[in-house]
């Protein structure tokens, strides 16, 4: 018997099992497409250039989808092979050797994997292009985001999925090599057994979830959030699978024990059905739950970034006009004169345009790096010296009062401080050679302070800044960049046009192109570019949301269809002994709690616990407003629940049509 024989046999098997293979091919094609599209984004210009934190997040996303693909294809394959056990068991009884059966399986896997990989890549290419075109049209960014892909990504996709299909092949072969024919013939009938040690699995799932949640809740600062995010996501994904596997079986068994609940027509049929394939049921539900979490997080965060664009713009540029003054290394004291001169110049320019300054803020500050040890702030030479350095900003009281509109007074040995982790509680703090009596104040220094661990100290006057710098220089004589810098910001009266004219004028004088040691930024002039970037986020968010929603549709569809074919015979028998249509509908209805409520609720819990870490990540992108996030999160949860409800209804109708 040659390969031709086996390959044609394999082809015939696939054709004659159309009912099983069509949903299988459809779903593996879609998952391949999903992975390919996600991986292609790694190459995307926007992703690579917008922000250094975006690339690692997309690498993370790709890895997560990769892991998900492995689980999903193994899950669908197990459905398929279980239903074919009897057929393949017959080969053994009819006298085919095991290696021949393996050959048939090899060709079957070969055909299906080639077909679905090819279809997935082609589909991905078309879908990616089309969808980017559509989104560009809808979002209308100043610069279109172009869909791109590379042969490396195509190769990686092919490699990954060949490997996954290889695993399914080995799994299927092992199923047939280690089982005796009689067992195989009974294969389809036998129910799944409860996994061993399900209590341990349950505890393990809680530990993993707790660990993942814990990482999110205790994350100290955004930079750490990027590195730990991956671990947390992975823990929660594994935890979710284990939770569903052990938890759902646990609940189902408890329900079965309760006779008043179990012995009612709808529950009787659905509970026994779910217990019969308890693992598959659990994995299917966990799949839905994880995808739902991904949709909600992807869309709600990007939506927040978009909605919060104006606010982040205001955070980045607190005033309509902002000027940063860079100090002179050679002559540190020079700033104390330039600071006031420049404010006068600005004032004059504004008057010259016939406008008035309505609001302003200005402060000088010195920046140091180091860490709190006991009640001393110990300097480091530079930012790169330490694992987690604390950034210290020192500013004079005069500027602090001006900036906050308060009127603190300080004795010569007194100071105010703010600590981003709120950890410092001592009443004294040594800074250089001087020890201050200190009092804590709230964060008046901008949300940027909370990005990394930072401290702000308000000293009695500018001379203290110079003293502290002298102490620092004593410690590190070779340091050559120590300066006092300053920020000046102001709003003016006037119409938008007048403001723009002023901004253009100032931009010519002090802007990025003008050089010099002052840098001018106008919020007005930055706005368009800013919205373009944030629109780009929304674009990616919608794209990912759509991708994951398609995944959800697919998984729900696959679950319902394959279970429908699995259950069909049972329902037919039950109808013979007097099951009516209404009860069939009732039993599919009692699925709602499981298929609809459970995944959505657990996904929501996941997302709630993801809140702290996601919030830290959002800080990197300048979003600080919690209400925006909360609102868009609630909105997205409700919207997704509604979409999923439609998906659920449609697929459960399909199920009903199959079984009735």
């Amino acid at each position, binding site marked *: 018997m040659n390969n031709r024989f086996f390959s044609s046999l394999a082809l015939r098997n696939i054709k004659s099992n159309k009912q099983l293979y069509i949903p299988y091919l459809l779903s593996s094609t879609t998952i391949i497409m999903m992975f390919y599209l996600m991986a292609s984004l790694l190459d995307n210009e926007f992703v690579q250039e917008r922000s250094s934190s975006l690339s690692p997040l997309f690498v993370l996303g790709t890895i997560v989808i990769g892991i998900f693909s492995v689980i999903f294809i193994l899950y669908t394959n197990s459905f398929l092979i279980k239903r074919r056990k009897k057929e393949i068991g017959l080969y053994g009884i009819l006298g085919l050797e095991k290696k021949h059966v393996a050959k048939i399986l090899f060709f079957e896997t070969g055909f299906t994997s080639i077909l679905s990989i090819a279809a997935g890549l082609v589909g991905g290419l078309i879908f990616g292009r089309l969808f980017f075109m559509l989104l560009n049209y809808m979002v209308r960014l100043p610069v279109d985001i172009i869909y791109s892909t590379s042969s490396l990504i195509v190769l990686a996709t092919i490699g990954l999925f060949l490997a996954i299909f290889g695993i399914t092949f080995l799994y299927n072969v092992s199923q047939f090599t280690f089982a005796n024919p009689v067992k195989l013939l009974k294969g389809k009938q*036998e129910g799944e057994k409860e996994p061993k040690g399900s209590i341990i699995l349950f505890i393990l799932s809680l530990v993993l979830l707790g660990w993942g949640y814990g990482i999110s809740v205790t994350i100290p600062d955004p930079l750490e959030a990027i590195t730990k995010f991956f671990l947390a996501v992975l823990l929660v994904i594994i935890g979710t699978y284990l939770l569903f596997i052990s938890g759902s079986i646990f609940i189902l068994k408890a329900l079965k024990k309760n006779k008043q609940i179990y012995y009612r027509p709808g529950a009787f049929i659905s509970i026994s059905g779910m217990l019969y394939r308890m693992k598959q049921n659990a994995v299917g539900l966990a799949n839905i739950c994880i995808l739902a979490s991904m949709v909600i997080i992807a869309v709600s965060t990007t939506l927040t970034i978009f909605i919060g664009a104006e606010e982040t713009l205001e955070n980045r540029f607190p005033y309509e006009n902002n000027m940063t003054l860079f100090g002179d290394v050679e002559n540190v004291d020079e700033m104390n004169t330039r600071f006031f001169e420049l404010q006068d110049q600005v004032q004059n320019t504004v008057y010259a345009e016939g406008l008035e300054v309505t609001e302003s803020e200005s402060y000088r500050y010195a920046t140091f790096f180091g860490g709190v040890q006991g009640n001393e702030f110990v300097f480091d030479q530079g930012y790169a010296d330490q694992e987690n350095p604390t950034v210290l900003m020192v500013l004079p009281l005069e500027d602090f009062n001006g900036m906050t509109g308060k009127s603190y007074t300080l004795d010569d040995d007194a100071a105010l401080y703010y600590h981003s982790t709120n950890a410092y509680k001592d009443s004294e703090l040594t800074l250089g050679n001087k020890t201050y009596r200190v009092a804590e104040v709230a964060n008046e220094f901008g949300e940027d302070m909370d990005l990394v661990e930072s401290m702000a100290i308000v000293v009695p006057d500018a001379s203290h800044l110079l003293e502290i710098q002298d102490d620092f220089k004593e410690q590190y004589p070779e340091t050559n960049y120590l300066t006092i810098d300053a920020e000046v910001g102001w709003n003016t009266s006037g119409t938008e046009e007048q403001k723009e004219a002023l901004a253009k004028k100032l931009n010519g004088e002090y802007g990025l192109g003008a050089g010099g040691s002052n840098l001018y930024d106008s919020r007005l002039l930055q706005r368009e570019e800013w919205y373009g970037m944030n629109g780009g986020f929304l674009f990616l968010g919608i794209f990912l949301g759509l991708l994951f929603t398609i995944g959800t549709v697919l998984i729900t569809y696959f679950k319902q269809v394959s279970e429908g074919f699995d259950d069909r015979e049972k329902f037919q028998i039950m109808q013979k002994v*007097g099951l009516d249509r209404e009860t069939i509908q009732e039993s599919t209805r009692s699925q709602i709690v499981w298929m609809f409520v459970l995944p959505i609720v657990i996904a929501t819990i996941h997302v709630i616990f993801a809140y702290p870490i996601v919030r830290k990540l959002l800080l990197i992108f300048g979003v600080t407003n919690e209400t925006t996030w909360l609102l868009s999160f609630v909105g997205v949860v409700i919207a997704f629940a509604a979409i999923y409800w439609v998906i659920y209804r449609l697929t459960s109708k399909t199920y009903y049509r199959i079984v009735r």
Partner: protein
Amino acid sequence: MTLLEIKNLKKVYTARFSNQQTEALTTVNFSIEAGEFVSIMGESGSGKTTLLNIISTLDDATSGEVFLEGSPLSKIKDKEISAFRRNTLGFIFQDFNLLDNFTIKDNILLPLVLSKTPVREMEERLMPIVKNLGIEAHIDKFPYEVSGGQKQRVAVARALITQPKIILADEPTGALDSKASQNLMEILKGINETGQTILMVTHSAQAASFSNRILFIRDGAVYHEIYRGDAPAEQFMDRISKSLKVLSSRGELDE
């Protein structure tokens, strides 16, 4: 009292993809008294299953009518048909038709659960039946964990538990060996002796010999019938074999 009456029953199948018609039943007339145990015999393809399916309301007749206790089955509304099947009829199938996702116990209780019977009543009904059928040791197992004979006894228990007016059995011994068949038939006979009406289709003369009356079907019509009367088992078997021989030789019956 006449329990079941069948009048001029006719069934024509039309093939799905052609106009070819098969007349499975031409004209069938007979009636069954309450408490009888009737077997139907006939060659393969003679229309036995078709007849049974129409009586079970699983299939519609082309013309003619089936009366149960005087009321026509065709008048039952679609909505009530399932409940009617559950409460009035008990089924035993050749291939058992047990459900793998239910334990033996739940398989037996299935029709009662569908009728929303209170849990206590279900359990009260279950025990005597499973004890009587000798399957009480297996009620927590699953169907694939018991033998064929045991499965068929489970199916009998499922048919009995609703206390149906009539039990309809299509070749219940078809998938069993002779010992298990013997055992099952003794059980059915015992059930019949408690007053339960049974209508059974069978190919086996041995199985048929447990009933009181046998109808022979040929070419879609009742062709012949014999009563057991007080005859001993061997003599009845003998008469059955003789009738079958005549039936298959297509010769005339001379009695």
